[in-house]
């Protein structure tokens, strides 16, 4: 008996806290699955070769490229998208800073940007602006020029650390 599946394969995963079972085309990437099958249109399929970062989602606790992860590979995974992170309030402070600082304009990059920034913030401490830029270097924004995005991330890190941005350096 061959275990090679030619067209569709069963997957069971948890998306935004809810168990999901589906039969997915073997070549379908996770973003198409989330958008087309589950209606979660927050993360975007844009360049589809890993360059733009608009598809960034959280898989098993890490920010990854949804377009470079096959849905078939997400069997058993725990996936969070901007919708779930919004519903739980996990990134409410980050979203509020994005809004108040105009860290988004068209909003296309924002779901991916938030997930990438959230991963950095989850490490704790206050990263330097250089570290924020480096961590977000794989997320393109064509509207803001990034300055307001870095401001927003820095402000949240500082607020979460309960201190002053300039004194709480998080490293090199």
């Amino acid at each position: 008996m061959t275990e090679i599946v030619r067209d569709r394969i069963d997957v069971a995963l948890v998306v935004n806290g809810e168990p999901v079972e589906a039969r997915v085309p073997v070549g379908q990437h996770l973003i198409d699955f989330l958008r087309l099958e589950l209606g979660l249109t927050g993360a975007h399929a844009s360049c589809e070769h890993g360059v733009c970062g608009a598809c960034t989602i959280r898989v098993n606790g890490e920010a990854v490229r949804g377009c470079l992860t096959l849905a078939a590979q997400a069997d058993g995974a725990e996936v969070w998208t901007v919708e779930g992170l919004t519903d739980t309030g996990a990134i409410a402070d980050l979203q509020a800073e994005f809004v108040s600082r105009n860290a988004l304009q068209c909003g296309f990059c924002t779901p991916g940007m938030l997930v990438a920034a959230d991963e950095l913030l989850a490490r704790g401490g206050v990263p330097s602006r250089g570290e924020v830029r480096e961590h977000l270097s794989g997320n393109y924004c064509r509207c803001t020029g990034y300055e307001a995005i870095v401001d927003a991330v820095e402000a949240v890190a500082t607020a979460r650390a309960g201190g002053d941005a300039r004194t709480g350096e998080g490293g090199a």
Partner: protein
Amino acid sequence: MKAAVGGYARARDLRHALELLAQTNGMGRVLAGGQSLVAALNMRLTTGDVLVDISALSECRGVVEDGDTLRIGALTRHAEIGRDPLIAAHAPLLAEATTHIAHAAIRNRGTIGGAIAHADPAAEFPACALALGAVMHVEGLAGAREIPAADFFRDTFETALEEGEILAAITIPKAEPDEVQVIEEVARRSGDYALAGLCLVRRAAGHRVSLFSTGPKPMLATGAMAALDAGDVEGAIAALKGEIDPPSDTQASGAYRRHLAGVLLRRAVARIEGGTR
């Protein structure tokens, strides 16, 4: 565009993965982190592949000490290499290299085995493997092979891996107490593939210099190594420029890459003389 694949199978262990590959009539393709392969599938640079997914094989993931060497499982991810204490202590070149590879989200899934098997001439890990004298541990249904890095990289995207074989691990000699290892590269933007890059290792037996993104595969600059052993930095830079023939493309001209290689060697030498590692 969307991928057009010929099939998919999830391997339970290495043996199972090899058996699955053998059933694919030559269409088999190992899927590790997917950070090069899924991009190629999405762009339909390759179609009809039967994907044998090895990404869940825990036996091929992680770093362990093995006498005088470090054994790095092929599925160890770039981000894990970057924070592994054994790597930091015994192969700091690899840890530094990860800071140049792609972006955080890609480093969370890309694997060292995938980067080495993919053999992109602009990739960091193949050149590191060459500079450190790594050995590739390859498994096949016909048996296991050990291939020194110097014999492993053949051409652009081409290695000594035969059809149906899987790279299981790489071993690297642990750094000597006084060994220094540095990597230098120039890229237009953080995370881009390098326009030119260079690894420099200094151990008791002498210097080792490897280059990436200056030819079809990573190479050892033996002329530059001999000149550095003789204490002649200017001679090493001249030798280096003479022994490479970098290509011109939309990113940079060959002449610019050759110039950069000399600049990178000078920077690397300045760092090891300053004692930073």
